[in-house]
Each structure stands twice: as structure tokens, then as C-alpha cells.
């Protein structure tokens, strides 16, 4: 009996201390080495203080983790932080607490979380083109950008040399790309050009880069009644050009996502437009010298290029948690936004630095000199201030709209439809999806 009482006395303070650590569930979709880095970040944060413990959990790919989060939320079991891909932004925003108390919301906007945590939070310290995607019409940040990338242009120096082209001269306009492609094909290359993420690069970013709208209402930022307009003359011209290249054998279609990157680093296609985050993959596998340069633009468009928009994911916070948890989350976000942390993340993964300070730090460290081309992505996003057409895209059911675009483009490449037909059909089908989203979220 005495032993028992002694044990209880000793155990009590331990129990009290155990209760003091607040667990923060962080669901993410980072696989392989990236997943390890996320775990590493969480570990470092946990070691740096003893009040909060971030528990990173891999929850499948972006689709699966989002569905898991929705199932959990519906059952009253939501995580604290969840990584959601950029196309899920509209869905998350529609469910966010806009402070008016009007509707039942399941998402807590980041600016509120930071305020609740008493953390210093200056939205202006974030790179505008990156944070604008996740900012509402009142300029308030709703989610924290985490892993963002933007499309850039890669080309094979050795193949250029073989074709008699100057390997240090990157093609700036699409016409120049066409001229280079002709020479590359003439020198015996299997294919001259390919593109990854065709919808994101050749339509969404293409529109922003040339300051033409992808959809009305500021690409959906200003209202759910937006309509798609990416079947404008400029976009049709671009797709028609690519279709022509495909017929000539200059452009080879490699898949909807990042599969085409393999065509580039295997040496098959000499030029590639794809995500800036592919740098690591390409560097590891390419057996030739390559260059990263800005995305080409169409010379006839005045004022081009504007700026590119991001892809990737951001961190959202769910509602209904205890104040202690929000404090911890705010602290974690501050940790993540620290210049040294962001600079390291940017340099190791190839994702964009989300704060200006991180970019400056990386520049100071001489990273861009030792890794030429890795600042192209940042420069593309910071040289001009975003316009209504280049802030980003906020459309409902965007996952399905991208699939529709992919399907219609495939019809163009396989010769079944003309560029105009395909884009018109994509717009029609996409608008249907937008109407359904609008109805469901009234």
C-alpha cells in the first residue's frame, strides 16, 4: 500500500508534464526523400521547444489525403494541419471561416491562426506571386504556401551543339523555339520538344505569362460565377502551333503529369517545359549538360512576359481545435517561415522560397552562382507585380477541369480534333463543372 501511494505521488508530476505537450497532427503527401525532409523539419521544431509536438503523417497522395481529411472532418476527427494541392484551394476557401459568422466553416484561415497564436505575421514579407494564390479578396492569407513551383524551360546543351546551335543562347520566344526545333530535328534528334503538366504549363501559366484571362472574374478570385475563357485566340494559336509540331514530329506527347521529364533526361527530347521542382530529378538522371532558362513567350504579345503562377501545395488549418493547438500551429508556421529554414528547403528541394528574406539569404550564400538556373523560377515570379490575370487560379472542381483539359488536348495530339474545337469543348465541359460547384456551395 505504501509503495502504491509513493508510486502515485511520483507519477503525478510526470502525468501533469505529459499533459503539457500538445500534439499537432500534420497530414502531408510528401513521398520519398521529400517525406523524410518533412519529418526532419518537424523533428527540429519539436526539439526546439517543449510545449508542442508536431506529428507528421503521410496520408497518401494529394487526392487521397484530401478525401481522408474530408472523411475525418465529417466524422468530427479533423487533423490540425493538412497539406492541400493548389487545385483544391477553391474547395477549401469555400469552407473557410470568413469572419462574418454567416456560415458553418471547417477551415480556420492562417491569418486568424497567427493572430490567435500571438505570432508576428507580416503578409508582405511573403513573395507576392506566391502568396497571392492563397490570399482572399481582402488581402488576408488563408493558407501558408509550403511547396510551390513554377514552370521553367530546360534545354540540352549537348544536343544544341550537335545541331549547330549556340548552347549558351536560350530561345526566348516560341518562334525561336520553333526555329531551334527545326534544326534539332534536322540534326537527327528523336524529338525536339516536350512538355510536362500540359494544362498547367501550356494553358494556365501560358495565359498568366501573357496577361490574358484563363477565366472571368479575375480567374475566379472575385466570385464563384466565373466562366472559363481559355479558348481565346492566343491560346488557340499556341495549341495549334503545338499540334502542328506534333504532326511534324518536333513535339512528342509524354503524358499528363511529370512523365515527359524522363523523355528529356534520357536525351530523347532536347527541350522541355516543366516544373522548376524537376531540377533535382533531371540533375540526377541527365548524362548531359543542361540549362534552366525562363519560360518562352509569344513575341507578338505586347508587354509579355508578365509573371508565372505557382503549382504545388499549401498548408491549411482546420477549425474546431483548442486554443493551445492553434498557438502551437502558429509557432510551427513561424518556424517554417524562418529565412534559414526556407532557404534550406528551397535549396534542397527546388521548391520556391516563400519569403523574400529566404531568397535574399540564398543569393547571399552564393547558391545561385554554384547552381546556375535555380533562380530562374524566382525571377519569373518577382520581376513584375501580378495582375488580375496572373495572381493565380481559383476555380471550383478544378481537379476535374484539369482532367477535361488533359482529355481534350490528347484529342488534339492524336489528330482527332483541331485546337479550336478541343479548347471550345473543354470550356463547355468545364463551365458545366463550375456551375455544379457553384450550386453545391451556394
Amino acid at each position: 500500500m505504501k509503495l502504491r501511494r509513493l508510486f502515485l505521488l511520483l507519477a503525478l508530476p510526470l502525468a501533469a508534464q505529459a499533459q503539457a505537450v500538445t500534439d499537432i497532427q500534420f497530414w502531408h503527401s510528401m513521398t520519398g526523400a521529400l517525406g523524410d525532409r518533412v519529418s526532419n523539419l518537424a523533428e527540429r521544431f519539436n526539439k526546439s521547444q517543449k510545449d508542442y509536438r508536431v506529428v507528421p503523417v503521410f496520408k497518401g497522395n494529394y487526392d487521397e489525403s484530401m478525401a481522408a481529411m474530408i472523411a475525418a472532418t465529417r466524422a468530427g476527427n479533423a487533423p490540425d494541419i493538412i497539406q492541400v494541392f493548389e487545385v483544391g484551394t477553391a474547395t477549401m476557401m469555400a469552407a473557410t471561416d470568413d469572419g462574418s459568422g454567416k456560415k458553418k466553416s471547417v477551415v480556420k484561415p492562417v491569418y486568424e491562426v497567427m493572430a490567435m497564436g500571438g505570432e508576428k505575421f507580416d503578409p508582405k514579407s511573403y513573395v507576392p506571386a506566391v502568396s497571392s494564390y492563397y490570399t482572399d479578396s481582402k488581402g488576408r492569407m488563408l493558407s501558408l504556401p509550403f511547396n510551390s513551383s513554377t514552370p521553367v524551360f530546360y534545354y540540352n546543351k549537348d544536343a544544341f551543339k550537335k545541331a549547330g546551335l549556340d548552347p549558351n543562347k536560350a530561345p526566348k520566344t516560341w518562334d525561336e523555339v520553333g526555329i531551334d526545333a527545326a534544326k534539332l530535328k534536322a540534326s537527327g534528334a528523336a524529338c525536339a520538344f516536350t512538355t510536362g503538366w500540359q494544362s498547367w504549363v501550356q494553358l494556365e501559366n501560358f495565359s498568366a505569362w501573357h496577361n490574358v484571362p484563363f477565366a472571368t472574374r479575375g480567374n475566379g478570385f472575385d466570385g464563384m460565377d466565373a466562366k472559363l475563357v481559355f479558348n481565346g485566340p492566343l491560346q488557340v494559336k499556341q495549341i495549334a502551333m503545338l499540334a502542328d509540331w506534333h504532326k511534324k514530329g518536333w513535339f512528342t506527347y509524354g503524358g499528363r503529369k511529370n512523365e515527359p521529364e524522363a523523355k528529356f533526361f534520357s536525351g530523347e527530347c532536347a527541350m522541355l517545359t516543366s516544373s522548376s521542382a524537376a531540377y533535382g530529378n533531371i540533375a540526377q538522371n541527365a548524362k548531359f549538360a543542361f540549362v534552366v532558362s525562363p519560360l518562352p513567350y509569344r513575341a507578338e504579345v505586347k508587354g509579355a512576359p508578365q509573371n508565372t503562377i505557382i503549382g504545388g501545395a499549401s498548408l491549411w488549418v482546420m477549425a474546431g481545435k483548442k486554443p493551445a493547438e492553434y498557438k502551437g500551429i502558429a509557432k510551427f508556421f513561424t518556424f517554417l517561415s524562418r529565412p534559414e529554414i526556407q532557404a534550406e528547403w528551397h535549396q534542397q528541394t527546388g521548391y520556391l522560397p516563400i519569403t523574400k528574406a529566404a531568397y535574399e539569404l540564398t543569393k547571399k550564400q552564393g547558391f545561385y552562382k554554384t547552381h546556375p538556373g535555380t533562380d530562374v523560377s524566382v525571377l519569373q515570379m518577382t520581376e513584375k507585380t501580378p495582375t488580375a490575370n496572373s495572381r493565380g487560379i481559383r476555380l471550383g472542381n478544378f481537379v476535374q477541369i484539369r482532367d477535361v483539359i488533359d482529355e481534350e488536348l490528347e484529342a488534339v495530339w492524336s489528330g482527332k480534333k483541331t485546337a479550336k474545337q478541343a479548347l471550345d469543348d473543354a470550356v463547355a465541359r468545364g463551365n458545366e463543372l463550375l456551375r455544379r460547384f457553384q450550386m453545391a456551395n451556394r
Partner: protein
Amino acid sequence: MEKRVRFRSRWLPYLLVAPQIAVTLLFFIWPAGQALWQSLLMQDAFGTNVQFVGLENFRDLFRDPLYLHSLQVTLLFSALVAVLGLGIALVLAVMADRVRIGAGLYKTLLIWPYAVAPALAGVLWLFMFNPDIGIVAYALQHGFGYHWDHLLNGGQALLLIVFAAVWKQVSYNFLFFLAGLQSIPKSLLEAAAIDGAGPVRRFFGITLPLLSPTLFFLLVVNMVYAFFDTFAIVDAATQGGPSQATETLVYKVFEDGFRGLDLGGSAAQSVVLMALVIALTVLQFKYVERRVQY
């Protein structure tokens, strides 16, 4: 399906079915009912804004010309998978039953594909048929001059998923065919042989009829498999592309519901899909089971 002999008991049968019925009601009927009820609703992803819309989802569905296309793709795909899966497996099982040497080895090797997770199977086949680095695509190009590009050729894409699906199903069917074959009393076959019946006559006269209950089981199960469980393969290999050439009904359900988070729309599609498969199953029980010899 009538047996002459029955046991009499007031309470025993209920007790015997109780565990399965309980699990079925709790973990299937109840959630499935909710899922189907959602076909009459339109809601946002989180369920915070729910509206009753009656048959609106169904109307939207049938207005979509691509839905009919999806149905055609599914029927073609399922027919190919069932026929090839059952045919190849039956041939292999009959052969394996006949040989004595190495029977165990053949059996283990032929069941191995079933052990591969469906998602991984899709990836493996994609790997082999990848237009650039795939070993089979390479062989086709350099050996036969046949250009394989399932990224743009819809017919080839369909073939790819048929191969991947059949590959897994052959193992499954093989296992059950073999079990069925091995429970046929050897004495029957010996008697027929003594009477002068050759192997082919023995097969069609004795083996096949005695195998018919297994065959019926596998026919129904294969059809259900082709309609429902092939989602993972399509997702890993073609994602419904190119241009919806491999967009099966179940893939559409998953895309719209799970990825697109349109629960009302996907629930409506599930209702239609469920009705279709129930109809096919009832037809099979009514007309095909008649020819099964128990």
C-alpha cells in the same frame, strides 16, 4: 437450389447467420444507404451546405454524352476480362491437374501474380509498356516494328488495362478451378477411361459438368471484379485516358466522388452502376444457373 434434406431447428440458422448479417448491416447496408441517399442531394465537399435536389444529379448524368461512352467502354472491357480470364485459367488449370511432376511448382508460380497488390500491378504493366523505357514496347518496336504508344492510342490503352486485369484474374480463377478439379473423384474418370472415353470426351462429359458450380461462381465473381475492382489498375496505368478511351464506369465514380469530391454526382453514378450489375447478376442466376449441375 432445393435440397431434399433439411435440418430442423428454430433458432440455430439464425444464430449461424447472425455474425455475417450483423457485420453486413453495420458496415455495409447502413453506410451504403447513406452513400446512395447522397445521390438525391447536392452538397459541398464538407457537407456543410446540403440541398435536396431530387433526380437532378441523374438528369445531369444522362445528359452527358460521355457517360454513354463510358458505359460502352465498361461493357467491352468487362467482357474481354471475363472471357480471357476464365478461358486462360481453365486451360492452365486442366493442364496443371493432369501433370504429376512439378504440379506444386506450377501452382505456386501461377498464383504469384495474385499476390501483387492491384495498385502495384498497374504500375508494373505501365513500366513494361512505357513507350520510352518499357521492355515490351521496346521489343515491339525493334522486334516487330510496331509502334506502341498507349498515351495517344486509345485501343492500345484499353489493351493495356485488359492485360493487367486479366493477369491478376487468371491466378485467382486458376486457384479455384484447380480446387474444383481436384475434388472430382478420380474413380469417375477412371471408369470412363475404361469404357473407352478419350480425354476430350471425359472433359466435356464429366469434368465440365462437375466443374459447373465453380464455373458459375467464377463467372459471377469475374464479372463483378471487372466492373468494380479494376479501379486501381486503371488509376495506376492510364487514368481513364487518352481522351476517355479507358474511362470505365467505376473509374468515373471514383474520379468524381473521391477526387472531384462531387458526392452527389458520384452517388448517382453508383446507383446506376449498382442497378446494372444487380440486373446482370439476376439474369445470370435465372438463366445460367439453370444449366449448372449440382
